[in-house]
Structures are given as C-alpha cells and as structure tokens.
C-alpha cells in the first residue's frame, strides 16, 4: 500500500461510527458485505458509487463514538483503503490499523471529487485537481511495524506467541 490514488469523498468534523455504519447492520451475516451499508443513513448513494482507491477526507475526530470495528471494515470493504483526517478518534484509529485501513492524520484542502494521490512511504499527499501538496508525519515505529506486518493478529501469528 505505497501509492493510493482516487477521488475525494468530503466529510466534516466529528463523523461518528453510527453514521459510518448503523448498529442494526452489526450482525454476523453482514461481516463480508459491511461496505454495502457504508454511510447508508447520511449518504445513501455513496456505497454504490465508490471506486477502488477513493479516499475519504474529513476534519477533526473522525470515527468518534462506538468501538465497532465494523466501521473501518465497512470503509475498506466498500473499496476505500485510506481516510485522511485532521484527527482520529482513538479506538477507530487502532481498529483501522488492525483491519488494514490506513488512517492518515493531516489537514488538507480537498473538495468532493478532487483527485488525490498519497505516497505512503514518503508521507506526501497531492491534490492533483488543485495542484496542492502536503506532508504528513511518519507513523511512530511501533505503529509502522504493526501496519507492515498486517495488524495485530498477523503479528501474534508471526511471532508464534500463542500456541495450542
């Protein structure tokens, strides 16, 4: 996941997990189709129109509210592998790393539909539509290591820390 390029889906501050996926969809039979319900109450047209590589751009505190891991899973299953936000809620941030959905903390300018390119390795975001560019801070070593290994479960498996 070194280069991500796609259209921006624009959101404001404090996007909560109830908006991302409502509680009534949190049932086991939906575990592999969570993306179908992404933002269904607030932007019902969105899940059908997402293309692979699209990027959510938001303000402060993205993913606040419940601990439901279904939220970053729904975003990823819909085809979005990266959310760029000014800041993230804590539990959502941890969950994102574990499910392979990249949370990039950076304040950028983007309108709905702008084409963005993210260079993950070098910490660079380009808004191609507007011709603007931003840098984001590298992930802390512990988080970077966790992401590169594929999340917490992959790490436990790799280190064979848990044996039957």
């Amino acid at each position: 996941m070194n280069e991500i390029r796609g259209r921006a889906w624009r959101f404001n501050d404090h996007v909560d997990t109830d908006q991302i996926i409502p509680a009534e969809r949190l049932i086991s039979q939906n575990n592999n189709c969570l993306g179908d319900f992404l933002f269904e109450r607030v932007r019902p047209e969105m899940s059908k129109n997402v293309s692979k590589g699209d990027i959510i751009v938001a303000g402060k505190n993205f993913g606040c509210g419940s601990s439901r891991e279904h939220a970053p899973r729904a975003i990823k299953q819909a085809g979005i592998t990266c959310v760029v936000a000014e800041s993230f809620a804590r539990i959502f941030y941890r969950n994102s790393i574990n499910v392979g959905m990249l949370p990039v903390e950076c304040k950028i300018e983007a309108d709905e539909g702008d084409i963005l390119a993210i260079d993950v390795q070098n910490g660079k975001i380009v808004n191609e539509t507007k011709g603007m560019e931003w840098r984001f801070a590298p992930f802390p070593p512990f988080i970077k290591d966790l992401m590169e290994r594929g999340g917490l479960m992959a790490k436990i498996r790799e280190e064979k820390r848990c044996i039957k």
Partner: protein
Amino acid sequence: MSSVKTISEKIMSAHSGVEAQAGQIVEAEIDYVMANDVTAPLAFQEFEALECEPKRDKIVLIPDHFVPNKDVASAEQAAEMRRFVQKYSLPHYFEVGRGGVCHQVMVDEGFAAPGRLIVGADSHTCTYGGINAFSTGIGSTEAAAVFAEGRLWFKVPEAIDVRLSGRFRGLVSGKDLIIKIITDIGVDGANYKAFEFSGAGVANVPVSDRLTVSNMAIEAGGKAGIFPCDEHTVSYIQGRVRGEYTPVAPDPGAVYSRTLEYDLGDLDYMVALPHLPSNGKPAAEVDVVIDQAFLGSCTNGRIEDLRTAAQVMKGKKVHKDVRMVVVPASTQVYQQAMEEGLLAEFVRSGAFVSGPTCAACLGGHMGVLAKGERCVSSTNRNFIGRMGHKDSEVYLAGPAVVAASAVAGRIVAPEAIQ
C-alpha cells in the same frame, strides 16, 4: 525519569512491569476482557483463525445489545456466543435473565475493581473508572488478541486533572456534570487522554454517579475517566467484588496535561441537544416537546437513577402524548427496583417497564424512533440516527430531567412539575 505518577501511569506500570510514563507504548497484562453480542462475533472469527487456547478466566461474555433476540439475525448472533462459550468451557458468561447491560454486569458481578486494567469491545468500557479501575474500549480484533494472550499494547495516556469541589443542588447529578464537562471541552477535548478526578467534591459524588461520569468520558474522546478509591467506593463494591484489589492514588506532584475545576454547587440540570453530546444547555432553556422518554442504559440505568426518577414522578402520570420506556440496567438492578416497589410506581404512572437490555439506546429495539420523533434520554449518545430514523432526535439528560419531562410532555427541570 519522573518518579511521580498519575493514576493511569501507576496502573499501566503495575500491569506492564515497566515504569510507564505518558506517551510511552507498553504491553500490559489485562485483568479482564469483555465483549457483547455485537462485537464478540468478529472477535470469535479472529480468535478461531489463531488456533490457540483462550485465557478462560479473563474472558467475560455478556449479550446485551440485541437480546432477548430481537429478530432472526440477532438470534443467530447470540447463538454464536453461546456456542463459543460451550466450545471453550468459558466460566464467565451471563445469559439473558441473569445479566443485563454489560457494563453494569461487570460492576454487579465484581469484575470491575480498583486498580484493575480492564478492556472491553465496547466503547463505554471506561465506566469502571468510577470505581478506580483503568478500563477502556477496544475493537473486536484486539479483544481476540486478549482472548489469546491476556495482554495488549497501550500508549500510556496523558491525564486531565478534573478538580471537584462543593455539592450537587437538588437532584442535579453526575450526568449533569459530565454533559457540562463535554460541552466545555468538546467531543474530542480528551482524545487519547484520561480524565482523573480529584478534590474534596469527589466525596460528595455518589459512586453510581461516578460510574455515569466515567461512562461518558469516551464522549469527549477520553481513553478513561478515573476516580480515586475512597470509603464510598469500598462500601459500594463490598459483597460484589471478586478477588483482591489494590486501590491506586496519584502521587503528589503528578503531571497533568490540563486542569479543569468544577464546583458541583454551580451546576444546572443539563441537556445535550442533537446531534453531539457537547451541545449541552441548562434544561430550563431547552423547552422542546417530546414523543418519548427513555430511562436506562449503562449510563443511567442503576438503582439510584430509578429511585430519582420514581421520586420525581411520585403520584404523577406520564403525559398522554409521551411513551416512557424504563429499562433497568441489570438483573440485580431490576430485582432491587422490584423489591423497592419502583417498577410498580413506573407502571402505575403509565410507563412501559422491561427487563434489562441496551434496548433503544443504540436504536436496536424497544423504543426505536420514527421520522421526526424526539426522545429525552438518560443514555450517552445523540448522534444522527442513533435511536432510529435519521431525522429523529435524541436529547441527553439525567434521570430527574427524563422523569420530569415524561410528565410534562416537554423537556423541563424537575422543579417545573412540583
């Protein structure tokens, strides 16, 4: 390295074996990991893929969100939990009728205790800070990791010192305090941080109210909200707590990222307007017509909350255009309320009373709202569509305001119906 520590740093140090300081990443031994019927199935899926033996004694499973099964899908989900419990012979499972809302069960059954480090696949796991535990919400994958290893990584949080003085007026309560705090600092005002409460006012906050305050720490983004352990804490957990526990106090001179001060006597009855818990206003300034009043949840479904509501409603009727839904938070609360005659009082007044479950709090069942409907609720979130239709509205308040509003048919402070 600083030798003075906050409560958070001390609990993290004791559980990780290192001198933990704010900002540091540690791997810590977990006392208990809890999951409910909504978050557990994903944890089971991740855990099974590991092919290892679970840390049986640390796992607590409590169905509460969609039980008693509200439909076939939720029935399948609850059955998944039962099968997992049977497969691994897990000792701590609380069936419908013997449990209730997970966080109240964690307190009732004595898993939550001072000095413990508890995680739960539910964001309101921070509730147990009310009795001096460091407890926080995690995702399902992380819960699965704790099922397997009994350990988890943490970034040790900075703490916000919340100094309390004075005494609540009338029926003003912990709910009013926490809505005021969230309104003051915003829904991300404590993101990645822990609240630690201090000051002479703490002794005047009943333990049930402390649980309410800690419960909503997450609504300001808080990782935890921790009260000191005092004689009230000890007497509250007596007869419930399992095993030994070690109360933790901050060191004098511990470093906090910020200090907030509240005189409890200055607080009004507060209401958080849609659609954020930070939209707090004094109840007297709200005056909104309601369709429903909900009393229950891990925030305010304790016996003390039911007593307050029953006291406000004594001899009065629920307004003809209002449905009042009363849901005690746990089987123990339900039984106590029955023995005290509180449930009979609610039924007499025209309220609907049910057994313990999360019910309408997260829009699951028993009180879901139609388009345009408004509910005054003792719960913790008023996000868009939280309790039903996206064009419905939730107004968060304490039990006294919920009860008074149910009678008045609009949001009012309890004095307005005396």
